[in-house]
C-alpha cells in the first residue's frame, strides 16, 4: 500500500535563505509524485510533479524537487525563500493507501514559517 511521510511538521527559515522540505514515499512500482502548496484558507495548488525521466523537476514559483529512487525520497527545494512562501506544503503519491490507482495519498504536511 502507498504511503507518504513528511518528517518535519514545522520548519522555520529566514527570508532569503535556502529551503529543503523532505518527503519519503512507499510504493511498489514507479511512483507518480507531487508537491502541492496550501496558503491559509485556500485550496491546494500544484507546485510540480514527477512521472519519469529527468529526476530533477522544475516547478512554479522557483521550486524544484529531486526524485531519488534509492532513498525513496522526493525532496522539495528552493534556493531563496520569500515571505510569500509561508504556507503548508504537501507531498503526495498517485494511488490510494488502501489500494487502487485513482486519487492521491498525501503526507501530513509541513508548515513553513518565514522569519524576516
Amino acid at each position, binding site marked *: 500500500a502507498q504511503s*507518504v511521510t513528511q518528517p518535519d*511538521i514545522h520548519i522555520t527559515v529566514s527570508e532569503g535563505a535556502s529551503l529543503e522540505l523532505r518527503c519519503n514515499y512507499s510504493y511498489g512500482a514507479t511512483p*507518480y509524485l*507531487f508537491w*502541492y502548496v496550501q496558503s491559509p*484558507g*485556500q*485550496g*491546494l*495548488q*500544484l507546485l510540480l*510533479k514527477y*512521472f519519469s525521466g529527468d529526476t530533477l523537476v522544475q516547478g512554479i514559483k522557483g521550486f524544484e524537487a529531486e526524485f531519488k529512487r534509492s532513498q525513496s525520497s522526493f525532496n522539495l527545494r528552493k534556493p531563496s525563500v520569500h515571505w510569500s512562501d509561508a504556507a503548508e506544503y*504537501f507531498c503526495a503519491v*498517485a*494511488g*490510494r*493507501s*488502501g489500494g*487502487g*490507482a*485513482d*486519487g*492521491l*495519498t*498525501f*503526507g*501530513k*504536511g509541513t508548515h513553513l514559517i518565514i522569519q524576516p
Partner: protein
Amino acid sequence: NAGVTQTPKFRILKIGQSMTLQCTQDMNHNYMYWYRQDPGMGLKLIYYSVGAGITDKGEVPNGYNVSRSTTEDFPLRLELAAPSQTSVYFCASSYGGRGETQYFGPGTRLLVL
C-alpha cells in the same frame, strides 16, 4: 474559467442533521474527487468519480454518499452528521486518472456540534 467551485464555504450542523456539499467544475474534466482534511493529518480521499454515473469509494467513505449525474457536478451528501465529520472538505477534478494534475476547490469548512 472559474475552475472548481464549492458551496457553502462554511456550515455549522447539529448532530443528526443532513446536508449536501456542492462541487462544480467547468474544465470538462472526467475525474472528480472528494477529500477531507483534518488538522495535522493531510488529506484523505472519501469518494471519487471517473465520469458521469460512475463513482467509487476512497479511503474514508463511511457516513458519506455521492452521485455524479453530470460531468460538471459532484455533490457530497452527509446523511446523519456526527462530530467526527467536523473537517474541511475539498473537491478536486482532473482530466484523467493516475498521474494527472488534480485541481482543487477552495474548500468547505464543516462544524458538527
